[in-house]
């Protein structure tokens, strides 16, 4: 609206100065150049899956002369691929539901209830922000092994939940706090207790934040590589991240096939990203960025 009005005001009376047009143009040129750097490798991978390896090296950018679907069909028809997909799904489901449930409960306590020692306990939980799982894998591996969880999905899911708790609790606590206390009072007058308020009022209102956590934790769990590598010795339990490394080890020189496998993982990731972008941005920026 506002832009339309200002345009209507400015165009007839004074035509836009040529300098402004040039700046705009330069802006677009730079932005498009960077967009090409981002998209180039992705497009090459997706198109590369349809090429023979020879074609891929001779002409990495172009469209394939004849699309070679057998790169894809070879992977999709293998039982291994589907088993690894299922394994990834198990890990994601366990890690995400565990993180969301435990951090929603924690965030509620730290945002809406008053009790002595609250800040100290809260600080204890945020301590974990300093230790991302990407560098803590060695100590975690030792602990998982001591608890006899080697080769168990729990050996991956529980650490992922533990490392997901600090960030998720912090984000949710911020959202819970922002919900006005009038709503809380009103729900008490209507006969809700603390738990009723949490379940019927707070959780539904915090849906964008819960969505953000589900999406961010899904990305983390889906992409996790080193924990499964260390903890799952039985390759029948491997998720796709290990599967693709194994596949690359096997067909390393057959880049057409490797790229087909890569695209099978990238295309769903892009779709997931497009659908959930709103939540990701909310989660990362505390709900400040819109549109």
């Amino acid at each position, binding site marked *: 609206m506002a832009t339309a009005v200002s345009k209507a005001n400015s165009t007839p009376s004074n035509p836009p100065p040529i300098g402004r047009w040039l700046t705009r143009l330069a802006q677009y040129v730079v932005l498009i150049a*960077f967009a090409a750097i981002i998209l180039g490798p992705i497009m090459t991978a997706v198109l590369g899956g349809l090429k023979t390896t020879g074609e891929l090296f001779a002409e990495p950018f172009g469209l394939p002369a004849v699309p070679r679907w057998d790169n894809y069909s070879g992977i999709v028809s293998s039982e291994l691929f589907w088993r690894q997909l299922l394994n990834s799904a198990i890990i994601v489901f366990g890690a995400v539901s565990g993180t969301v449930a435990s951090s929603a409960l924690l965030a509620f306590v730290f945002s809406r209830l008053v*009790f002595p020692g609250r800040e100290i306990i809260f600080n204890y939980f945020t301590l974990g922000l300093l230790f991302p799982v990407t*560098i*803590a894998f060695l100590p975690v591996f030792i602990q998982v092994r001591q608890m006899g969880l080697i080769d168990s999905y729990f050996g991956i899911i529980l*650490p992922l939940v533990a490392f997901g708790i600090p960030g998720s609790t912090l984000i949710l606590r911020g959202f819970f706090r922002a919900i006005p206390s009038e709503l809380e009072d009103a729900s008490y007058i209507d*006969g809700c207790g603390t738990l009723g308020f949490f379940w019927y009022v707070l959780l539904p209102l915090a849906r964008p934040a819960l969505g953000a956590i589900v999406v961010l934790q899904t990305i983390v769990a889906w992409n996790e590589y080193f924990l499964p590598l260390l903890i799952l010795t039985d390759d029948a339990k491997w998720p796709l991240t290990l599967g693709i490394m194994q596949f690359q080890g096997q067909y390393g020189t057959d880049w057409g096939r490797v790229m087909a496998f890569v695209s099978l993982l990238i295309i769903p990731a892009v779709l997931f990203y497009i659908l959930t972008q709103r939540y990701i941005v909310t989660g990362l920026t*505390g709900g400040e960025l819109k549109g």
Partner: protein
Amino acid sequence: MGSRSTPRFRFTARARDITINERPRTKRGQLLTIGLFIIPGAIIYTLFLIMPIIQAGYYSLFDWNGLGPVTDFIGLGNYQRAFQHNVFQSAIVNSLIIMSLSLMIQLPLAITLALMVGRKLPGRAIFRSIFFMPYVFSEVITAIIWSFVYHPNGGLVNTMFTTLIPGFQTQGWLANRDTALIAVFFVITWKYFGLHMILYMAGLQSINGEIEESARIDGANELQVLRYITLPMLAPTIRLTIYLSVLGSLNQFVLIWVLTAGGPANATQVMASYMYRFGIKSFNLGFGSAVAVIIFAVSLIFSIGYQRSVMRRDYVGTV
């Protein structure tokens, strides 16, 4: 779980409210709720995050291969060994190089692009989506794609240079000691600068445009507006991204490991990849624990120092 437990929640809630009539808060019911809500998270968090870190401190004092009993106490021997190892020293240097490059190149780039996309450029949503997209890809996928991009013969980069520059000698970008670290850094930037850009865009959006407008009316040109209004108002976001960028560079690992495994000849070894290579792969969990403790200590000291001195309490959310 939901449908069965909901009515019970309601019931307890009502029972509690009846007693409330006399006193504003029933202490015991409240404490029970607090306990029940904290315990599940506390157990998992303590067992799988806090305990491993404390144990790492303990195991780091032993010469332990990870299999036999933990008996061979060597005090600070592991730490001494790590700091004297030239590969660890160069891993520290490489981590520092990645960190400085991130601060000097990645963040200014993210700010520039965020300013260019601006607050109302037509198509801003599309550019934002494209720039942020690599953030969702796994490190493994990213590394595989880029090992093709950098492929010594016929990879994307070499093909591009040979078409643009006649007579260009194809390079093994990741196999050459001189180019490997820069090549790795380029991939890191490709994957992560979108995150910083999104944070800057959020910061820009929270700035009231009228302040900039009134500066323009007072005769400030665009550069002055940027220098004296926009950037200072963006300061909290800049402080946050510096923090995230430093910690992110310290923790950089999977991408590097899959791309180069720390090679060639340790040219891309960073602290975390060193820990994997010399702790786990060479069956020396006591030594690996010591390296883990060193990395934790560096993150901790930096975080506390930075938060106390620079950020105070203005950070937005967390990643």
